[in-house]
């Protein structure tokens, strides 16, 4: 059974595109057929994060307007079998596509692919409405900052109003050192405030910048962020993977130590 997932956040710059690229690649590595769609018309980004910017011929607007067939716009990623990208248009704007057209497109792609992943633009206007139109479930990305959390709460409210089937949370850019000194909200704090199901937590990792420089998603690499993204992919596939969290490990160790000291 195929699934259409929208990756959204409200606020810009929290890691939607990076999350979309890594989840898409991770699911492909796990043997699924995946199509990534960049719905940010006018501000194309996913192609460059995926390192596929030199292979664009047709884009999302061409498909929707019928200038080409879906198959012609699909860019096949040669590194990962089963992974495809439909890039967004750079010279048009959000009004070039409407929610009905997006719904129709996702229905067609659903027949060919196991997972359709939509990278949503920032904001709550037309672009957001286009992106969520055909989605079965949403992944809301946030960082442990007040502005991002406020926007995430607003987005969750809107997704509920549009009757989104399932809403999951990804907390990005956590810094264990700052959480430890009490200068950053922890995953539990964020989940407590937003009261939504947690899909994954990603620690701030400089490898993200390095991998984006190369145009290679880091999901299959042996890095903290790479492992966290792989865990998210496994959870999407229905596996029960424990949360990767160094501070919790430490606290358990602390408790065991405490017991031994008492003895």
């Amino acid at each position: 059974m195929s699934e259409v997932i929208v990756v959204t956040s409200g606020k810009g710059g929290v890691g939607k595109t990076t999350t979309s690229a890594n989840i898409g690649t991770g699911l492909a590595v796990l043997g699924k057929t995946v199509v990534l769609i960049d719905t940010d018309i006018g501000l194309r980004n996913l192609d460059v994060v995926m390192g596929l910017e030199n292979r664009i011929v047709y884009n999302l607007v061409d498909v929707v307007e019928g200038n080409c067939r879906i198959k012609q716009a699909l860019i096949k990623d040669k590194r990962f079998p089963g992974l495809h990208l439909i890039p967004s248009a750079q010279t048009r704007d959000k009004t070039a596509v409407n929610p009905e057209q997006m719904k129709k497109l996702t229905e067609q792609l659903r027949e060919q692919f196991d997972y359709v992943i939509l990278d949503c633009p920032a904001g709550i206007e037309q672009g957001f409405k286009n992106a969520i139109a055909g989605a079965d479930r949403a992944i809301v990305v946030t960082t442990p900052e007040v502005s991002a959390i406020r926007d995430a709460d607003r987005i969750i409210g809107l997704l509920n109003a549009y009757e989104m089937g399932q809403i999951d949370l990804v907390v990005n850019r956590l810094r264990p050192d700052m959480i430890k000194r009490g200068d950053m909200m922890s995953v539990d704090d964020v989940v407590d405030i937003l009261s939504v199901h947690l899909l994954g937590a990603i620690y701030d990792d400089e490898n993200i910048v390095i991998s984006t420089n190369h145009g290679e998603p880091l999901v299959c690499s042996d890095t903290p962020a790479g492992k966290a993204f792989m865990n998210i992919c496994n959870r999407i596939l229905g596996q029960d993977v424990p949360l990767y969290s160094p501070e919790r490990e430490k606290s358990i160790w602390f408790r065991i130590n405490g017991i031994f000291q008492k003895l």
Partner: protein
Amino acid sequence: MGKLWLFRKKKSSEIAKDRLKILLISDRIDCSPEVMEMIKRDIAKILCKYMQIDTSTLELEFSRRKINVFW
């Protein structure tokens, strides 16, 4: 214990969490901080009707689970 808690400097993450809780409540019910202030004033007025309290030092805290009143 209470005194210690009062003197302890609040961590910035706790400040963020407290601010967000109030902010999200007003966002969700679409109610501005001014309106919240007016609600607080009205609650204080009602309390004054039944008990003797100093409204200048009255502090009302809105939270999702309970309402705490300090004076």
